[in-house]
């Protein structure tokens, strides 16, 4: 019991816990659309594209949120244009953007004299260094993302499910697709410090993917994804605190573990379900 209560006496741990809960919730809500639309690769590309923004902001002495947001939102808009206008395959175009922007970040990083631990933490995350200012920024950005989904959830749902039917009935599907990419970009900016650029795609995809194994209802999918993400974030944070290991990686490992357990034991895809199916078809 002490092992659980003791860290709560430290302000930095409580801040990290709050940050983990906010990041988990926002990632799971936006991630539900990412998984249903099948744009995990785009999420990975946007997160890598945020790196040069973070490095540039550091070099110019600006807040890293600003640099990351400009780079991530800019890339998401570019991807929106590329997927509609380019005459090459979308995944090829995104692959080019993805590698190019990340290389720019590494290039800029290498021009800085000496080792910059702060910047390195953006690659792999460092929840325990969440400051009060970070928490305020997380809450504001997270609030904007959740409020936008709260208003437009049904339009986003219809245009994800049946883009042709939605567009024909008057929904502005292109606009909604672009909006979703911008929401993904903002979600990534929120998650950068906690999880890091390399692993943030797991936060977007894994909770919703796990929830998909549990339910076939949209509302329950989003809610259970958020609960799973919060639980994994809290558990991962404690584990990383106890064993003094990287918080972002630990949270992602916990999520991956939950996903595998549900995959094997879950009601829809698990061994039990399969055995039931075999028994009923055999009998």
């Amino acid at each position: 019991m002490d092992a659980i209560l003791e860290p709560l006496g430290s302000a930095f741990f409580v801040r990290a816990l709050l940050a983990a809960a906010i990041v988990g919730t926002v990632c799971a809500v936006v991630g539900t659309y990412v998984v249903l639309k099948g744009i995990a690769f785009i999420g990975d590309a946007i997160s890598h594209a945020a790196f040069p923004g973070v490095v540039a902001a550091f070099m110019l002495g600006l807040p890293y949120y600003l640099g990351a947001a400009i780079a991530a939102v800019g890339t998401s808009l570019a991807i929106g244009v590329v997927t509609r206008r380019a005459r090459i395959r979308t995944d090829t175009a995104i692959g080019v953007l993805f590698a190019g922007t990340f290389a720019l970040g590494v290039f800029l990083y290498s021009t800085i004299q000496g080792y910059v631990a702060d910047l390195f933490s953006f690659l792999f995350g460092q929840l325990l260094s969440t400051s009060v200012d970070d928490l305020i920024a997380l809450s504001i950005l997270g609030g904007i993302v959740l409020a936008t989904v709260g208003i437009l959830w049904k339009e986003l749902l219809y245009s994800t499910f049946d883009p042709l039917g939605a567009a024909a009935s008057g929904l502005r599907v292109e606009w909604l697709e672009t909006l979703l990419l911008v929401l993904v970009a903002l979600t990534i900016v929120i998650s950068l410090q906690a999880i890091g650029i390399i692993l943030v795609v797991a936060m977007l995809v894994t909770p919703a993917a796990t929830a998909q194994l549990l339910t076939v209802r949209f509302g329950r999918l989003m809610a259970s994804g958020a609960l799973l993400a919060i639980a994994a974030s809290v558990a991962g944070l404690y584990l990383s605190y106890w064993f003094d290991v990287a918080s972002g990686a630990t949270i992602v490992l916990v999520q991956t573990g939950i996903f595998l357990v549900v995959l094997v034991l879950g009601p829809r895809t698990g061994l039990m379900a399969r055995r039931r199916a075999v028994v009923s078809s055999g009998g």
Partner: protein
Amino acid sequence: MVARPDHARHHASVWLSGVSTGYDGRPALEDVDLAIEPGTLLAVVGPNGAGKSTLLKLMAGLQPAWRGRIEVLGEPPGRQSRRIAYVPQAELVDWSFPVTVSDVVMMGRYPGLGPWRRPGAADRHAVADALGKVGMASHDQTQIGQLSGGQRRRVFLARALAADPEVYLLDEPVTGVDATTQEDLMDILEAEARSGKTIIATTHDLACAAQRFQKVAAVNRRIVAHGPASLVLDPSVLSSTYGGHLLVVGGQTVVLDDAHHHDQAFGRETHFHDDAH
């Protein structure tokens, strides 16, 4: 037989004049003239790749015209979108999507609600009403992937009904369904046409087009013929529509055409092939 063009345009709910379009620079439809009056139940027939789906997409504002003019309910396509309902081919839908039958039908109400309003009692009533009409009221909480092919077409027609449109644009609404479902769906469409709605449906089923539709447009890159079903569906029109894919066996016309092939050779659509129960 030849009406003044302005007269036809004035009375038409859907009107196309000299329309051409295509994909990636390759033409799919050329020089299409068509005037469809309210209360018409029109079948669009033709071989695969003839441009049947493209014709519907032009009317729905989903496909831009390269040349020519289109008016839907008196305005360019897309302007009156809340008064039309478009139903895509079944294979363009992701049936594993986590939505129930009633969720899908409620989507028909979303555009009328706008972003700020949540579905209310009137919307739930419209959904229940539409599900009742298509005979799916008892399946309202079923996930769509668990439905049979015929049930899926019933649900998508219910979504269109729930939107209460004036123009229905239906891509293969009775393809791959059992005879009972086909009769039920055609009864509903006939009733809608009688109440003054315009219904335009693509189909591979020439027997259904002949028996259940008032009018037929035979399409193969252009309008080969358009008029009453009995006049259009005659062997000479059909052979110029279907070319070598048509076989006349002892008075019976047989189309050598696979309904499961994609209508679209071009375009950038994802096709979902799912094992319908």
